[in-house]
């Protein structure tokens, strides 16, 4: 009986193997035929027959379309069809919050991918090694417009270099505004005035201000005033504190020996941690920060309990407008990353402007179409067609929506807002708006409205505060020096080390571990794979200096 059962099971497992045999084979999808152009092909030449590109559409519940329109048929895609004769198939929809996981699963299960899709660095490495995406190098050279090449070359070709594996360009960088990842400090000005305090000019003064806010319960709320906002990812707050002490966590930096070392393991970090630990112990940081999402801070700000928070310029929209709405007497200022001591200086850490790339599947017959679309998007957003775009954006029909969410591809020239800000400030001073494009006029009208509305006040803070700071400082930003590939093994080690780092740092800040434990952490970091990472990173650095 037992033998027979065993025999049965063996048969069953054999059948299972056979059935699963098709698991990796890949489906025999035919490649569609190539669409042609008439005459010489170039950056903006339309196709003779409509080329339909399939996309992995990232669905966001917040996007609103006019009646009858949708992701693949709206004012932006129609314009693209008109100019390039490219149509879009977005039947594969993935929820925004679930995009990376769904794409991982699709890649790993060898599902036929759409023609063009957004990927992160790890996914790009996997796809490249599986030979599923095009080397875009030559196509980029041939089809990218001069404008596009200029935009994507920002910060020493950061986006391009990061997408280059063994000399091949596997993804087109979807750049973001340089300010998106640069922290600055937002402070309740009316609270400073109430307590008769100066705007802080050093980190120590900032801490004193926070102390005063808490000790004197300047908000008058029954459950007290909070000191400095920080959430469980440590985030931008940690950047600012670490930078003041000369530390740069989470990035690779060149040391005195010319080799790259991981910033979080360098001795300056210890001082930053000690500082945060003290802030935590003295109650200036919420005792439960380690269990809180960043969005919790936005609530505290809106409720008028938190008067100091740290983040990039766009935190303004999420945090402060709500506070203005709830409390018309509230007033905010923004200051640059602060040095430790009077007369000191600080170089601000900036996160890379590219963290997602556009990849083209090998199954796509017209890979150059992706480059052409990016050319066109630039012209719509900032170039030749921008007047059409921004006039439409400000028309009654589209006033309340963000038209860029309609576009199948989006990237922001990293310095666009900084340049616009310079022009805006000039125009505000001189009253001469001839230099401003349609987008500039839009911002200009918000700024000059001066009706004390939350949106007006928030605009003033952004353009007269945040971008003025960015314009003054973007030359001296500190970026991650490693731009090499992140394959699955690299990312495996990194995942473990990242967790080790966050947990250790939070434990030190919360006083669960001593500050001197940092040295143990560094040893652990190296022994748990850090040595291997350091070697790989430096090997790349040697070859790509």
């Amino acid at each position, binding site marked *: 009986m037992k033998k027979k059962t065993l025999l049965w099971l063996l048969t069953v497992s054999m059948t299972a193997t056979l059935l699963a045999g098709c698991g990796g084979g890949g489906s025999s999808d035919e490649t569609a035929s190539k669409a042609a152009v008439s005459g010489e092909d170039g950056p903006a030449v339309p196709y003779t027959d409509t080329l339909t590109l399939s996309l992995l559409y990232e669905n966001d519940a917040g996007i609103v379309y006019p009646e009858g329109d949708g992701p693949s048929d709206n004012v932006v895609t129609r314009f693209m069809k008109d100019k390039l004769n490219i149509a879009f198939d977005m039947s594969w929809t993935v929820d925004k*919050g679930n995009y990376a996981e769904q794409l991982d699963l699709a890649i790993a*299960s060898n599902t036929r991918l759409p023609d063009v899709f957004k990927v992160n660095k790890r996914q790009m490495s996997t796809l490249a090694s599986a030979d599923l995406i095009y080397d875009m190098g030559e196509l980029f050279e041939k089809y990218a417009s001069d404008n596009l090449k200029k935009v994507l070359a920002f910060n020493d070709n950061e986006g391009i270099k990061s997408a280059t594996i063994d000399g091949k360009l596997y993804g087109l960088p979807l750049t973001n505004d340089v300010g998106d990842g640069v922290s600055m400090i937002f402070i309740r000005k009316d609270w400073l005035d109430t307590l008769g305090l100066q705007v802080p000019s050093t980190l120590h003064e900032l801490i004193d201000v926070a102390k005063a806010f808490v000790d004197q319960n300047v908000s008058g709320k029954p459950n007290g005033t909070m000191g400095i906002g920080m959430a469980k990812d440590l985030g931008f707050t940690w950047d600012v504190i670490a930078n003041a002490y000369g530390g740069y966590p989470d990035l690779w930096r060149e040391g005195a020996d010319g080799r790259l070392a991981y910033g979080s393991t360098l001795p300056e970090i210890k001082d930053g941690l000690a500082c945060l630990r003290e802030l935590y112990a003295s109650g200036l940081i919420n005792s439960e920060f380690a269990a809180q999402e960043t969005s919790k801070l936005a609530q505290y700000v809106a409720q008028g309990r938190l008067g100091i928070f740290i983040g990039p310029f766009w935190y303004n929209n999420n945090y402060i407008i709500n506070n203005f709405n709830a409390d018309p007497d509230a007033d905010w200022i923004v200051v640059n990353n602060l040095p430790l001591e009077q007369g000191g200086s600080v170089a601000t850490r900036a996160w890379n402007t590219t963290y997602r790339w556009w990849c083209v599947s090998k199954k796509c017959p017209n890979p150059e179409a992706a480059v052409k679309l990016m050319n066109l998007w630039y012209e719509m957003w900032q170039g030749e067609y921008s007047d059409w775009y921004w006039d439409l954006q400000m028309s009654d029909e589209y006033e309340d929506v963000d038209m860029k969410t309609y576009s199948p591809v989006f990237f922001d020239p990293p310095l666009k807002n900084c340049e616009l800000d310079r022009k805006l400030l000039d125009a505000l001073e001189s009253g001469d708006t001839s230099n401003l494009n349609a987008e500039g006029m839009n911002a200009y009208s918000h700024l000059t409205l001066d009706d004390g509305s939350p949106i007006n006040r928030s605009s003033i803070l952004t353009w007269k505060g945040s971008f003025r700071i960015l314009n003054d400082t973007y030359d001296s930003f500190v970026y991650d020096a490693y731009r090499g590939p992140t394959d699955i093994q690299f990312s495996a080690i990194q995942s473990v080390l990242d967790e080790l780092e966050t947990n250790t740092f939070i434990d030190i800040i919360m006083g669960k571990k001593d500050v001197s434990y940092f040295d143990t952490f560094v040893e652990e970091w190296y022994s748990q794979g850090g040595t291997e990472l350091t070697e790989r990173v430096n090997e790349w650095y040697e070859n790509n200096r």
Partner: protein
Amino acid sequence: MKRKKISVFQIVNASILILMAVVGILPFIHMVAVAFSGGAASASNSVGLLPVDFSLEAFREALSDDSFMRSVGISALRVFLGTTITMVLTILTAYPVCFDKKEFPARTFYVVFMVITMLFSGGLLPAYILNTRLGLVNTIWALVVPGAIPIFNVIVLLNFFRNIPKEVREAAIIDGADDFLCLRKIYLPLAKPALMTLTMFCIIGHWNAWFDGLLYMRDNTLYPLQTYLQVYLSSLSDIKSQQDVVQMLSVSDRSLMYAYIVLSCIPILLVFPLLSKHIKNGLIIGSVKG
């Protein structure tokens, strides 16, 4: 039946139980109170067990969320399909293996075959690959078919079947009944309490499942309720647009969160008394047999 006296023990025992029940339920009362409270009171955490500044805004907003309402519909469909399929299959599977080895020799094979699936699984990715190849992605079948036979439920039912006296069945077989008839006329009626209990657990299991929805529904418009809650409750406090800003003032996201939760519990509350009545009856029936 002699009349029972109410002793001190009874009173103490009952009071402890009542206290336990009340403590267990209090969080839900608090939740309902917050959901019906005004923005300011709820945001500052000053609501106890009764609403402060009674307001229906949170519910109004939750009910006007189309995706939420759609996800409730998807969950309802899932519960209906999933429970029907699972119960039919569980009954069919539990019956043959409730006989012992002597009566039904192939039983050993079937049991081993089932138990192995309890012990080993290929993990997430192979299952995903299979379901994609089968074309189940973005369909309701991805949520109800792959796990259609919970071996745990089969074991519960087979143990119940096993306790039904052999003599009843043997008498029927002598009268010429075959297995299907036996199952229908003898086992199912006698196992009604167990079936009701399993049905209830099945309904709840499907209602509460969230992870497969996240995996197999690529689009948020297809999420079942719990997946929707998992994804959106955490992002509730992110401010999405200018319109939201105005609403923020009247509705705190705590109230909104609890309004969503209260609404998601209502179907359970509706089904609950019905099923627990069956359980209660079932237990009385169960006590008759020795």
